[in-house]
């Protein structure tokens, strides 16, 4: 397991949760706050190990609920369910394709709030739900779809900057070079 990668993902999760609670400009304009945890989970499920996925679900969910009026822990299970589902099918997913990332982000960002709302209703809570929720889900899905490829680019850049890579040996050997004359 790459601990640096896990630490980077968890650090980004921490900042993402704080951003969601501290800056509500998107919410004022579009009527819904974009959730960055599902895009991060898509990245973690496709590019890291199962431990990182579980840690992201636990830490991200608990951090999010601690700043929200949600009961503590209610966001953990939906995030982990999405992460595990993508992780199990990741060999079949074209993870380098931007379109695949976009669609995964769209799906994850739409499913996560629905699962959380279902859990809240199961627990007997009464969250604010109405026809406007459909618009909010659309905003969340679209925001998540845009954020997912950005996440991949950002983590790719950080990976190139921070993780040491072993120099790969070229198959070219000068003693095996065929030198040709003029004729």
């Amino acid at each position, binding site marked *: 397991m790459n601990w640096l990668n896990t630490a980077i993902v968890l650090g980004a999760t*921490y*900042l993402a*949760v*704080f951003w*969601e*609670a*501290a800056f*509500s400009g998107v*919410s*004022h304009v579009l*009527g*819904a*706050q974009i*959730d960055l945890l599902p895009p991060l989970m898509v990245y973690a499920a496709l590019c890291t190990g*199962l*431990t990182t*996925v*579980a840690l992201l*679900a*636990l830490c991200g*969910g*608990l*951090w*999010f*609920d*601690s*700043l*929200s*009026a*949600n*009961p*503590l*822990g*209610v966001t*953990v*299970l939906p995030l*982990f369910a999405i992460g*595990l589902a993508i992780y*199990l099918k990741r060999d079949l997913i074209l993870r380098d394709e931007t379109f695949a990332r976009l669609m995964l982000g769209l799906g994850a960002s739409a499913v996560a*709030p629905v699962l*959380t*709302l279902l859990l*809240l209703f199961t*627990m007997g809570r*009464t*969250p*604010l*739900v*109405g*026809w*406007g*929720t459909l*618009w*909010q889900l659309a905003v*969340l899905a679209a925001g998540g779809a845009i954020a997912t490829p950005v996440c991949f680019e950002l983590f790719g850049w950080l990976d190139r900057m921070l993780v040491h890579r072993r120099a790969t040996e070229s198959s070219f050997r000068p003693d095996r070079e065929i030198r040709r004359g003029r004729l």
Partner: protein
Amino acid sequence: MLKRPHYIALGLVVLLTLVILNLPSQTSARFKLGVGSLFLPLFGLASSSQQVASTMGDAVLPRRQLLGLNDDLRRENQQLRLQALQAQETSSENARLRQLVGWQRETSWKLKLAKVVLREPANWWRTVQIDLGSRDGLRVNLPVLTTDGLVGRISSVGLTRSQVVLLGDPNCKVSARVENETRDTGVIGASGPLDREFVQLGFLSRNANLKPGQNVATSGEGGIFPKGIPIGKIVDVQATDSGLRTEAQVKLATNLSALEEVWVMFP
């Protein structure tokens, strides 16, 4: 197919979540505050960066504009002083009359200014967090307002931060009175997910004499909010339950989306 490590991870996460979700409410609240306190360094960073930005903004403000602003404020201050004198006179007269009639004397409320530091990240609740906590004397259910009107009530208190549940949230119900001849009372309930400016005033009698433009204020019933705090204005009235009850849509006096500073009311 799920393999053994997958089962272990799944089992661990589900078990931990179920344990946390089933914690007793007090333990859960403490745990929530503990987890939330991990964000304290970022609070400090955000507030200091805001301070730096405002200091820089003050530095570039022209002197002429500042002098003009100062004059306006001085004039407003004089007006407010006169109004305060009048209010003081009315208050003492009220106290004397109460004594004559034999009514219980109303206790005056104290106010404490708080800054809004965080907003609700989930789209299905209406809450904000303020920078006052139990060390400032805050406790659950204290009313929160601005100079425009009621904002909500304190729902949970930490050492340095508190959560305020806003009007329109399903967990913030307020007994309200319409300022008309019949003094109709109802309950302010939840709004729609996208309606941040409007709330529903329900549980009104079917004979309620409501018209758009009438003011709505707290009725003082329920024991949380004192009487007479402005809530908003009626914009629409409709009959519900086949005409058995009346419901009104109220435009809030306070803009809840733009809250920066609020007052917490102490008895």
